[in-house]
């Protein structure tokens, strides 16, 4: 019995650490709607700064003072980031802030190695809380007890602040209806800055409090960020109490789960999230989001198919790309093929995000299913390449049919997180099913057959498929189906009123996107000659998101440019410098500031600002508007 009590308390201590990080994220998201990918980075910075300060100041006062000072210092960094970077991009399309914070995270990961060195750092134990307390023969670390108390105390303090202060009232009002708060004359700028500072403070505090029990290193951020998002979503966005309940739920299930299934930890949080979201689409304590109020006329330019001149331009670009094998070497062609594959992948997600308005955080699942489809077809069934290539889209399609059905029942960030959960579930199945998939060691020897083996042939194959896929997706966007999909995105209620089955349309779009991603995955398996579980992993899903956002989500085909720029740059940087994350992150942050609508989106809006006569003369035809 004593064991179960202690295991329960241990779970509570884990929950408290998780809750501290999650509370900050929940507050920031609730008010600013920023999906703050850098939250893990602030958590990590908190730990690093606290490590430095605790090494300098000894004694109880020194230790606790250092923890507090570290949190304040990092919160100040957060304020600077908010004022210099995020303020510039509140008005741009949703999720674009994700790109900015992603860039920051990349930079911080390299910066901490530059500043603190590459080794694991082990901080001091907390003075007075070094030992353990005996509980019927079981030992409970006193630091755990401290955390167990701290969690609810922080929850209570936050509750007081939000319920009993004017600032808290404003924040809650902003969480419910930002525009109305602004209309009533509240200075949103400072409200947002202060909220961001509080959130970052909590993240840094959580990080600093880890140093007596953890090692400080440069991948702390990624270890925590996904779990924290999951906790916030299970709890319900913007609900701090929900986040607390979710943290306790997840931690206790883990503490007792591992007694029965020792391998459960790897997937537990995602299983919980998927189950919770299927039953409660807005998390445990979340409320249905008010439909977004779109200012009329804000949606920049109505989309139109390419004009004949633009078609000629596209054809010229294509011909240039197709002639690459005549003057480029094998390595360049190899990179070219990889870029073409990522154009396919990014275009599939872009279709879902731009035309469908559905941002998936787990799109790699379908890419990876495509790659594994090919690997199974070659290795288990021994199929020839031409047929095996079809297994990719087939696997992507099957996965998308099943998961898409559940996912499209939700919307917004909940949709995104459910797709993430599904992707992680697929990933963990592939990772664990060693007999079939080889687990972490992957499936080797999936090389192209002779007819496609040379670098130039494989490049042409990838390029041709990429062009077909992109044209196909454009046609779908401008087909009646595409119009129905875009209508569902822009006004679900009106579309339903005129008899369009919105969910079914969205499900179809999800299946199309999944199938196309599967095509990309199939080619990728042959390009690399081997398949590993990381083709299904979160980093690849994030890459796809970054490519789409970089290109511009409000464009028809921005993802093509996004994929080319991002992939080419990252391959080049990884090859040229060891600090590729720092440079790439800085580049992304610059792009975010310079091209707030994505590269293509910004170029388009500059183009459209020109005098229309000149534009029409250049285009040679009238713009067909959607209206």
């Amino acid at each position, binding site marked *: 019995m004593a064991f179960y009590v202690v295991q329960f308390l241990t*779970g509570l201590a884990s929950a408290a650490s998780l809750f501290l990080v999650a509370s900050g994220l929940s507050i920031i998201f609730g008010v600013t709607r920023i999906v703050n990918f850098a939250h893990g980075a602030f958590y990590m910075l908190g730990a690093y700064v606290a490590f430095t300060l605790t090494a300098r100041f000894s004694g109880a006062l020194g230790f606790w003072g250092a923890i507090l000072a570290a949190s304040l210092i990092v919160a100040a960094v957060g304020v600077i980031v908010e004022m210099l970077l995020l303020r510039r991009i509140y008005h741009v399309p949703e999720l674009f802030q994700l790109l900015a914070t992603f860039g920051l995270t990349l930079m911080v990961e390299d910066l901490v190695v530059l500043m603190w060195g590459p*080794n694991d750092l082990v901080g001091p134990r907390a003075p007075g809380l070094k030992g353990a307390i005996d509980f019927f023969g079981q*030992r*409970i670390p006193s630091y755990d007890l401290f955390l167990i108390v701290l969690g609810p105390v922080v929850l209570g303090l936050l509750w007081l602040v939000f319920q009993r202060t004017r600032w808290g009232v404003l924040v809650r009002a902003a969480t419910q209806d930002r525009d109305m708060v602004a209309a009533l004359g509240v200075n949103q700028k400072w409200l947002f800055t202060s909220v961001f500072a509080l959130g970052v403070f909590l993240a840094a505090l959580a990080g600093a409090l880890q140093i007596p029990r953890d090692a400080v290193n440069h991948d702390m951020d990624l270890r925590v960020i996904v779990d924290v998002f999951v906790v916030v979503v299970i709890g319900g966005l913007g609900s701090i109490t929900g986040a607390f309940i979710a943290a306790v739920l997840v931690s206790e299930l883990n503490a007792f789960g591992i007694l029965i299934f*020792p391998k459960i930890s790897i997937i537990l949080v995602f299983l919980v999230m998927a189950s919770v979201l299927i039953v409660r689409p807005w998390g445990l304590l979340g409320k249905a989001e008010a439909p977004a109020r779109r200012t009329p006329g804000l949606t920049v330019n109505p989309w139109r198919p390419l004009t004949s001149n633009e078609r000629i331009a596209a054809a010229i670009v294509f011909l240039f790309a197709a002639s690459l094998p005549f003057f480029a*070497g094998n390595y360049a062609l190899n990179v070219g093929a990889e870029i073409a594959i990522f154009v396919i992948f990014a275009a599939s997600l872009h279709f879902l995000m731009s035309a469908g308005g559905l941002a998936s955080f787990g799109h790699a699942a379908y890419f990876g299913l495509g790659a594994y489809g090919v690997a199974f077809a070659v290795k288990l069934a021994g199929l020839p390449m031409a047929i095996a290539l079809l297994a990719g889209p087939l696997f992507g399609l099957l996965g998308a049919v099943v998961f898409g059905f559940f996912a499209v029942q939700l919307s917004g960030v909940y949709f995104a997180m459910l797709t993430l959960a599904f992707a992680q579930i697929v990933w963990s199945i592939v990772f664990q099913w060693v007999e079939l998939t080889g687990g972490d060691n992957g499936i080797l020897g999936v090389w192209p057959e002779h007819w496609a083996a040379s670098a130039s042939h494989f490049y042409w194959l990838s390029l041709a498929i990429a062009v077909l896929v992109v044209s196909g997706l454009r046609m779908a966007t401008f087909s009646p189906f595409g119009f129905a999909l875009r209508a569902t995105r822009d006004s679900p209620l009106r579309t339903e009123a005129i008899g369009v089955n919105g969910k079914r349309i969205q499900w179809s779009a999800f299946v199309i996107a999944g199938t196309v991603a599967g095509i990309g995955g199939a080619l990728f398996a042959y390009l*690399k000659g081997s398949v590993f579980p990381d083709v299904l992993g979160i980093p690849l899903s994030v890459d796809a998101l970054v490519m789409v956002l970089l290109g511009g989500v409000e464009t028809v085909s921005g993802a093509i440019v996004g994929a080319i720029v991002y992939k080419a740059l990252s391959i080049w940087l990884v090859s040229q410098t*060891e600090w590729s994350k720092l440079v790439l992150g800085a580049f992304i942050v610059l792009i975010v500031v310079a091209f707030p609508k994505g590269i293509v989106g910004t170029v388009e809006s500059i183009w459209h600002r020109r005098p229309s006569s000149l534009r029409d003369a250049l285009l040679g035809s009238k713009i067909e508007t959607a209206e």
Partner: protein
Amino acid sequence: MQGRVLLGATLALTLMGFAPSAFAQSGGEIKIGEINSYSLLPAFTEPYRKGWQLAVEEVNAAGGVNGKKLVVISKDDGGKPAEAQTAANELVSSENVSMLVGTFLSNIGLAVSDFAKQKKVFFLASEPLTDAITWQKGNRYTFRLRPSNYMQAAMLVDAAAKLPAKRWATIAPNYEYGQSAVAVFKKLMSEKRPDIQWVEAQWPPLGKIDAGPVVQAVAQANPDAILNVEFGGDLVKLVREGNTRGLFKGREVVSFLTGEPEYLDPLKDETPEGWIVTGYPWYSIKTPEHAAFLKAYQAKYNDYPRLGSIVGYETIKAAAAILAKANSTDPDKMIAAAEGLSLPSPFGEITFRKIDHQSTLGAFVGKTALKDGKGIMVDSVYRKGSDYQPSDAEVEKMRPKD
């Protein structure tokens, strides 16, 4: 395009300007392509890089490889197999390297070895531990330097089987390395000691151990001894929770890799005492080969070597020896030269086995102890890699025929 040509020309001119004239006369240079997870795992790859840079310096100071200057072109793989493939492709197609060396993670090692097999390139895997790279998925183009998972397990079993403990629990990260380390250890241990029981197995995810509940779960099973495969940040958390909760008190612990300075040093004064570990006690190895290496390393970097330094150093020494013996960059000739090749190392002479292309580099087995607030290895004994191998018949059964 023009810009790139110009840049290339400038670079080439600069390089020519700096190249020592001795090599310019005797016929150019010989290039080795090196790939490792520099940005993902800097704690291990930094000392590794210092090691190979020292070796390159020494090889060239001694006249290079058959009069040619040895040049290493190094690429980062970001910890991803797909990026390692891209890097391998660049090194082979654009840089025209004679062989590939390096890699740390097992899956990246396997990806590059498969690339080597497909493109018929010589590959010397330096750090990956997986048995598959020389056995189940071995190929004739791939050689491996570091003692494999099996070898390290066999060395530990030697010591562990002598313990009186009968009830064993295991804690290992839930991925291929952790799984196969536990599997091999269990198999070899049960062969030597049919009387032991495996009472608990915990599999926390790699890099994300929730140490409290794991420690409690193991303690609840009340084992006499624990096998640990955790390392890095996970090890720190496990040790801290285990110390506080008294998990290790009165229990024997056998632990993979923990004696390597990379993993032992961060633990500082919290180092648990009396664990049986594999590792690298650089402070207590008194052989002349190692003394020479240590002196050169400390003189160049003003820092002590980690195990990665040895691996990096010996990788390039081995590569140079293979190239020198083959006197050619033809992969088949290099394979013929490498099979059965013996060469000195800081740990004594090593040989690349013909049967599975595994080197006989060994490891030190000893016990952890605390000295002046730092963790060290005591009672360390060097175990030769050649003594901890399955029979040739077993190896032949596992390894695919070329």
